[in-house]
């Protein structure tokens, strides 16, 4: 990474002090909300700024930025647009390292806004102040207690987050939390007027705490650099991107949202193929892919062994894998022989791929499914396993925990990337699936989602192999 990016962005993610400019004690004032939440999170070096002065939540309010004693790393600016240039001048004069501009109405609102924005960036740069936004909520870093919203995860984990949308930034952080993972650092970067999503990607790509990156992006201002940076990062950590603005109507919406140029679909496809970016089409797919890429080892190829109890899931799982370009090869003679012996008492079975274990297996998965996983995982023709079964029609914590543990051990011993598709007619998840869903084996409620996660896992592994070749 260029040393400059690390040096310039570090104070924005781990600020020693934060100014909240444009604060007032009203329910809709974002700076006030941030003050409240930062204090709650244990971040105390905060300096509210309002010409009226006084005190808020027990913290002294400074009439202007220049009145604040000592250095300021980060300023959150929520003043009306008409006051932005003045505040920018003050930030620059104070030598503030970074300015998060919450205020909107710049390049996304037309040529006049664009001119205004260029003027602001010019002023900021003269003082060495970098601008995040406009139209954004800025940086988040739980390990530095920089947690501007009370709902956001407070512990840190492996997932770096970048979003052109402020709302979707919070939504992604919460979804990551719901998926059982934690964010490392994140940024809502708005319209990329100065610092861009590519700068943040480069920063997170070289951040030791970040092991995997998810991003919601709209237009790109510096395509050539995105290509170089993503190509450099992808072999070390996966980058999962949902790109908005892929239809004519979507592009119009994006132009008035971030004001950046949309990327043509053919070029986006080329970019992903060349740089290893894993492109997804929905937030659900983003989380499904994230969980699989985070938890699972990298498969050697795209050949899937499918193990199911209901025949319908065998067929739909096979269809789903096939449609996504995964292969469902014949199992070796040895595997078929061992499977035949292991499911001798069951009826309506098949030991070819997909392996259909029949009804008995659904009633004692700790025996049949466990054995099938152990046997199929040894087959040299198989790179990954998708096992689909129904939970029992009742919940029994002791039994379910025990069954889940037995299956998890078989999957771990098998050593091949394995996902579970757990459909149940009684709601989801039931029985042992409740415990499996909390484990480090990805569980999906639908064959298409399980197959999709495996397809993305295979795609990334292929990129890694070709990048090393």
């Amino acid at each position, binding site marked *: 990474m260029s040393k400059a990016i690390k040096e310039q962005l570090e104070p924005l993610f781990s600020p020693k002090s934060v100014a909240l400019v444009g604060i007032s004690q009203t329910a809709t004032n974002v700076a006030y909300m941030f003050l409240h939440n930062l204090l709650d999170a244990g971040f105390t070096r905060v300096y509210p700024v309002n010409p009226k002065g006084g005190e808020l939540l027990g913290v002294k309010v400074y009439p202007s930025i220049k009145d604040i004693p000592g250095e300021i790393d980060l300023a959150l600016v929520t003043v009306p647009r008409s006051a932005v240039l003045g505040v920018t001048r003050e930030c620059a004069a104070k030598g503030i390292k970074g300015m998060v501009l919450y205020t909107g109405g710049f390049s996304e609102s037309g040529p006049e806004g664009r001119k205004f924005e260029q003027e602001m960036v010019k002023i900021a740069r003269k003082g060495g102040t970098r601008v995040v936004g406009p139209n954004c909520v800025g940086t988040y870093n739980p390990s530095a207690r920089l947690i501007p919203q009370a709902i956001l995860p407070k512990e840190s984990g492996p997932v770096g987050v970048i979003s052109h949308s402020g709302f979707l930034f919070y939504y992604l952080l919460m979804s990551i939390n719901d998926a059982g993972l934690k964010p490392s650092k994140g940024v809502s970067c708005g319209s990329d007027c100065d610092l861009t999503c590519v700068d943040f990607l480069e920063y997170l790509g070289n951040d030791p705490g970040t092991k995997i990156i998810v991003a919601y992006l709209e237009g790109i201002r510096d*395509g*050539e650099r995105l290509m170089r940076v993503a190509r450099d990062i992808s072999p070390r950590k996966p980058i999962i991107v949902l790109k908005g603005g892929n239809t004519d109507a979507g592009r119009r919406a994006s132009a008035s949202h971030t004001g950046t140029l949309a*990327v043509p679909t053919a*070029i986006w496809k080329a*970019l992903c*193929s060349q740089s290893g970016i894993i492109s997804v089409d929905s937030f659900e797919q983003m989380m499904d892919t994230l969980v699989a890429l985070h938890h699972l080892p990298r498969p050697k190829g795209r050949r899937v062994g499918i193990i199911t109890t209901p025949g319908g899931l065998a067929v739909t799982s096979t269809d789903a894998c096939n449609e996504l370009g995964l292969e469902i090869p014949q199992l070796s003679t040895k595997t078929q022989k061992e499977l035949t012996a292991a499911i001798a008492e069951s009826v309506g079975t098949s030991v070819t791929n997909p392996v259909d274990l029949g009804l008995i297996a659904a009633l004692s998965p700790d025996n049949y499914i466990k054995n099938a996983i152990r046997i199929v995982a040894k087959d040299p023709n198989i790179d990954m396993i998708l096992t689909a079964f129904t939970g029992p029609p009742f919940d029994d914590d002791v039994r379910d925990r025990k069954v889940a543990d037995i299956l998890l051990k078989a999957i771990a011993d098998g050593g091949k990337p394995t996902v579970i598709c757990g459909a149940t007619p009684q709601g989801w998840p039931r029985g042992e699936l409740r415990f499996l869903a909390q484990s480090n084996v990805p569980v999906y409620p639908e064959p298409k989602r399980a197959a999709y996660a495996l397809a993305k896992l295979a795609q990334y592994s292929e990129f890694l192999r070709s*990048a090393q070749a």
Partner: protein
Amino acid sequence: MTSKIIDSVLKNGRTVLTEVESKQLVAEAGIPVVETKLAKTKAEAISISKKLGFPVVLKIVSPDIIHKSDIGGVKLGLANATQAGKAYTEIMAAAKKANKKADIQGISVQKMARPGVEVIMGMSKDAQFGPVLMFGLGGVFVEVLKDVAFRIVPLNKRDASQMIREIKGYPLLEGYRGQEPANINVLEDILLKLSDFVDKNPKIKEMDLNPIFAYKDRALAVDARVILES
């Protein structure tokens, strides 16, 4: 990188290269291209034809005539000196009839290439990503089915390899139903040379090799079109 052709065209105040100039540029890129020479008289056309070997193709060369075949400016499969001479006279007459004021530089003469699997390669520029290469099968596949693949310059070996295999018509390159297969390694090599060349020559705005005839042991660019940045 400097190119004498690019410099001289720009010096003349033009941005569109003629067929002969475009092909010289393709040759500069290290890409095999059918040898094409400019004849300014009928006698020259005949002597060039004899030197290249029959059958030959004659085409009008004028920056003012874009759609050459529409006005009768292209004659294919000329088998001997008499046919070549007659074609020269006819093309000149047709061109003057089509556009009295056209700046006619002469008539290009080239050996008629043996048909192969037709592929096309092109470069255009994207505002954010710079030069982008396109690859596809020629004719109906690109025009009607839009069966093309794109990659951003610079390409590496893996990009070139995947790009060719990405198009739906790829089986046709492998020799469908006893047809002569295309040499994929040669096509990959041409893509990499094209990528390298446009990367080093930012003055090129658009570059099309259309068609390229692909054979089992080699490939040959049969026509080319280059436009420079103004």
